Structures are given as structure tokens and as C-alpha cells.
């Protein structure tokens, strides 16, 4: 965390539908929204906020094919080269027999790699501290944070006014984080 603190204006919404239309209207006015915090994944809110589609699935695919490759190399090396043995008259490198382990390692490395990517890209992990603009965003409120330093075109009062016009349920508070 950097030492420089930033000022945010925090708007609290009660309803999902009000929030989604507010996001549209506020962005149309040219106000940059820092982030919206919700108690559950609001469908397509990332699209409304103009975020890029996550590339997590691609990361998962890359990890998965790494797993496939490692599994094939491992089995081929161990049974084919390191210590070849005749087992049940089969070939040393008996491809059909390698399918189960290859599949399992694909799934294992693919999912562990993806979860690690997810945690790292979101800065999540044991001991990490969350920045909570309003603790009720994990309960039943939708919380919108607008960074004042990032919206120099507008005064604080103007942004407050815009938020009030778009259905916040209480007066927006300023918060230093």
C-alpha cells in the first residue's frame, strides 16, 4: 500500500436495479467510478462499468496444457526411458494406460494454476487487508466509490449532487483511504 492517501466519495445503494441504472447515468455524465462493491456478483456489472473481459480462462487453459505436457513427459520418461519394464506384455510407452493420469494432472495443474492467478491478480491471500469503504457491502448494500482526485472536472458537491440524483439511499460520505 502506498502512503499517499486518497479521497473518495462513497455512495450507498439499496437496490440492484437502481445501482445498475446509476452506473450508466453517472458514467454518461463523465464521472469516473473507482469501483463498485456488492454483496454478491451482480450480473454484467463489470460490462456496465466498462471493464475488460477477464482473461482468467485463458490462463487456466495454459496451465491445463502445461499439466498435460508434464504428465505425458513424466510417464514417458519414467516407464519408457528411466527404467523400462515389461508389464503384462505391454509396450514400455503404452499410451492408453497414460490417459487417466494425464487427465488428472491436466485438471489439477489447470485448476490450481487458475486459482493462484485469481488470487494474485486480485491481491488476495492470507493476511491481506481489505479496503472496505462501507462494511455493509458484504451484507446487503451496493457501495460505489468515486475517487475525487481522479475527477478534477467536478467539484465534490457536483459529484454528491449527481449521486443524489441517481438514487443513493443516504447522503454520500467522503472517505480517506
Amino acid at each position, binding site marked *: 500500500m502506498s502512503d499517499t492517501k486518497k479521497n473518495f466519495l462513497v455512495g450507498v445503494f439499496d437496490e*440492484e436495479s437502481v445501482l445498475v441504472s446509476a452506473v450508466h447515468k453517472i458514467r454518461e455524465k463523465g464521472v469516473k467510478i473507482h*469501483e*463498485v*462493491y*456488492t*454483496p*454478491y*456478483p*451482480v450480473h454484467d*456489472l*463489470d460490462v456496465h*462499468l466498462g*471493464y475488460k473481459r*477477464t482473461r*482468467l*480462462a485463458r490462463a*487456466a487453459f495454459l496451465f*491445463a496444457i502445461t499439466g498435460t505436457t508434464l504428465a505425458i513427459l*513424466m*510417464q514417458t520418461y*519414467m*516407464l519408457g526411458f*528411466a*527404467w523400462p519394464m515389461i*508389464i*503384462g506384455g*505391454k509396450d514400455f510407452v*503404452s499410451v492408453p*494406460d*497414460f490417459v*487417466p*493420469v494425464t487427465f*488428472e*494432472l491436466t*485438471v*489439477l495443474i*489447470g*485448476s*490450481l494454476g*487458475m*486459482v493462484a492467478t*485469481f*488470487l494474485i*491478480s*486480485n*491481491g*488476495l*491471500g*492470507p*493476511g*491481506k*487487508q*481489505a479496503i*472496505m469503504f462501507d*462494511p*455493509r*457491502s*458484504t*451484507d*446487503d448494500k451496493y457501495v460505489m466509490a468515486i475517487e475525487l482526485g481522479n475527477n478534477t472536472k467536478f467539484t465534490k458537491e457536483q459529484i454528491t449532487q449527481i449521486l443524489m440524483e441517481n438514487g443513493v439511499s443516504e447522503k454520500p460520505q467522503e472517505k480517506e483511504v
Partner: protein
Amino acid sequence: MQYTSPVREPLVLRQMHKNDRKTTMHDITDDICRQVEAAPNMRWMIALGISLVVLAWGSYTLYRTWFFGIGEWGLNKTVGWAWDITNFVWWVGIGHAGTLISAVLLLFRQKWRASINRSAEAMTIFAVLCAGSFILMHMGRPWLAHWALPLPNTYGSLWVNFNSPLVWDVFAISTYLTVSLVFWYMGLIPDLATIRERAKNPISKFVYGLMSFGWDGSTKTWARYEMMSLVLAGVSTPLVLSVHTIVSFDFATSVIPGWHTTIFPPYFVAGAIFSGFAMVLTLMLITRYVFKLEPYITLAHIESMNKIILVTGSIVGVAYITEFFIAWYSGVPYEQYAFINRMFGPYWWAYWAMMSCNVISPQFFWFKSMRTNIYATFALSIVVNIGMWFERFVIIVTSLHRDYLPSSWVMFWPTYVDIGDYLFSFGFFFTCFFLFAKFLPVINMAEVKTILNSSTREAGEEYTKEEHIGETKTATAHLF
């Protein structure tokens, strides 16, 4: 345009004690966090105490197993694989429902999974650990368990045999355990953050803060989280199917009459889902009663699970009959004898217990009155699990105890150490489950909140108060 089907039951009921108003998101948070935040009640402590006693007794027989060796078991020269593998397959089967609920039902957009997936996944993890404990037990020398991994052993570069289904099993079970654990824990993080924000006691604030990984619920995180859940569901679906397929390979790739059948993989998978759902129902009905979760785990949930039990139970029934037909049709006398021996041999009682518990009993669920009856569901869920245990016992023991040489025909009977080891797994399973139910949220709050708006009925909407009272009465019918 949105169309809401009128026949669908609401998944979150209104609550009478809250003046019959619509359940809000805050109610969900309160209802689910309550049991985590409150001091443990007497009923919970008694339940945990009983589990610990069973665990202690099981630990004694486990000590005998490991100290004196597996000669303490009822195995003999003909039947070298019996009780432990039966229990292993039984527990792995039970461990199939959780991931099925969280993965397959997610892909099929079955919203009713939302309030049951958390505890079903927890159950999966504990069941797979129990299954793993039997693998360690039957090794006899569990301190050499790492030899099952592809590590170079002390004597040179001799590796594990990748042609063996037992090695496939090692990979399948450990992958399944890891992925299920990760899936379950990732689902827990948002809810742990909710508890962290509510915590007043500094110790719980610290512990839940540590466990919630700094979750803040931002849209960016949720968007990635949803993608991750979808991909995990996508890879877990074939994983669930592969695990029991590979377990069935332990038998199917052998040449023992009664085991050497290509029908085993689908038949085992259906049986696993069947027994898994039965165990989910048993635990869910108890949890719902103890923690008063009737508004979240409704009769609609129970009915849906009963339908899956009916389908998978019938698949298992068809598999039993197909197996018999193929044994006759094969014209192989050994194969035919194995099946006649199952039905009318000295273990006839196990066979008929299996047939009546697994094939006949789920047929009651053709009737809606049975599917929505809590007592019937609870009783049948236990009957199904007894039946599924006997299925594994029948497949394993009756196929072995009369081999090709009649002079070596014997019977297998378990010793008290065998039974104690089985009790160990029960003690372990229930201890884990009760600890989970007390210290972690048993229902996925975030997911129930997503379905809240679409799935609670507005007051007066073609749904009379009388209906509602009737439903709540049935829903709260006391089990014990």
C-alpha cells in the same frame, strides 16, 4: 423480456416469525451468521461429543491395525480385499454429490443448488478424506504411503507403474480432493468476509480476517471470481465422472469373474451420485433442523434431490439387471457362477439387502407425497446408504470368496477391528462435519442473495397465506 415460470416453487421462503414479510438480504446474513457467532449450544456439543467418542474407539482399533498389522482383520488367503475396500469405495461414492451439486448443477443453471452446495461440498471433502484413510489403513505400513507417488525410491530409479489402476487411483483421488477443497474454499471467501465485517470479538475478527484473504467484494474481483467458478465447474464435471470411473477400474481391469465388466464405470458413477445425494439429504435434514434453516432448505430442494435419487437409483437397478444378463449371455460358466452365487450363495442376504435398498426403495419417490415427506426422505436416505454399502460388499467379497479352486472356498467375516476401523471413519466424518457447521457458514450467503430477487414470491401473488402456513408447518416438522 423475462418470463417467470408460475409452477416453480420459491427457493427462499418468507418467514413467519418476521411478520411474514419478504426475506431480505440482511435476513440471510443474520440467519446464516447467527450460528457462527453464537456460543455453541448443548445439542451441538452432545453431537460433537458422541462423534469424538466414536473417533476415540476407532482410533484404538486403528492403532491395533497399524501396530499389529492387517492380520487383525478378517481377511484370509482367498479374500484378500474386503472390508477396507468396501468402505473406501463407499466413502468415495458419498464424496461425489458435493462436486456434482456445485459443478454439474452450476453448468445446468440449477439455482436450487445455491443453498445446499456449501455443506454438500464440505461433506465431499470429509468423505474423500475418510476414503483416503482406508487406503492408508490397508497399506499396513502407512509410513511408506509416499511410495505410491512417482518418487524415485531408495534403491534406484524404479518408478511407480503407470499401467496400474491403483496408481491411477492415487492421482484421481488426490486431484479430486485438492480441486474440491479449492473449489469449496474459494466459495467460502466472500462469506468469510461477511463474518469478518460483523465480528466484534478481536480474535474472531483476526481469524476470519486471515481466512477471508482480504476479500472486498469489488466488481472486478467478482467478475474474475465468476469466471473462475465457471471454469472450475467445467473441469470438475469430467473430474467427478473420472474419479469413480477410475475407482471402478480397480475392479474392471482385473480378470476376476464378477469384476471384469465394461459396464462398471457408468454403473459406479451412477451409484456414487445415488449414495452421495442420499448422504447429503441425511446431513441436510439434520442441519436444517438444528440450525432452523427451513426458509433456505425448502421442500423444493428436498424434492429436487429426491428426483435425482430416483433417477440414479433406477440407473443402478438397470445396471444390476444388465450385469446379470451379460453374465448369462457371455456363456462363460465362471461368470455365470459368480452371479448365481451372489444371488443364492452364502451371501444371499447381502445381495438381497442391496437389491431391496437400492432398486426397490427409491421407487417410492415416484410419488410426490413421498418426495416431499421429510420423514420418508430421511428414512430412505439412510436405507439407500445401507444399500450402497452392501453393493460394494457384494461386488468385492462374493466375487472373491469362491475362486477357481473349490478347496480354497471360504467365507469372510469382519473382526471387531474391521468394524472399529469403519467406526473410525464415521467418527472422523461427523467430527469434521460438526466443526464445519459450527465455525463456518453452512449456506453460501452470496449465492443465495443472487437468487433472492428472482426466487421469493411477492405477498399475495397467486400464493395464499394458507398455503404458506401449510408449507411452513411441513417444513418445520420436527425430525426427532
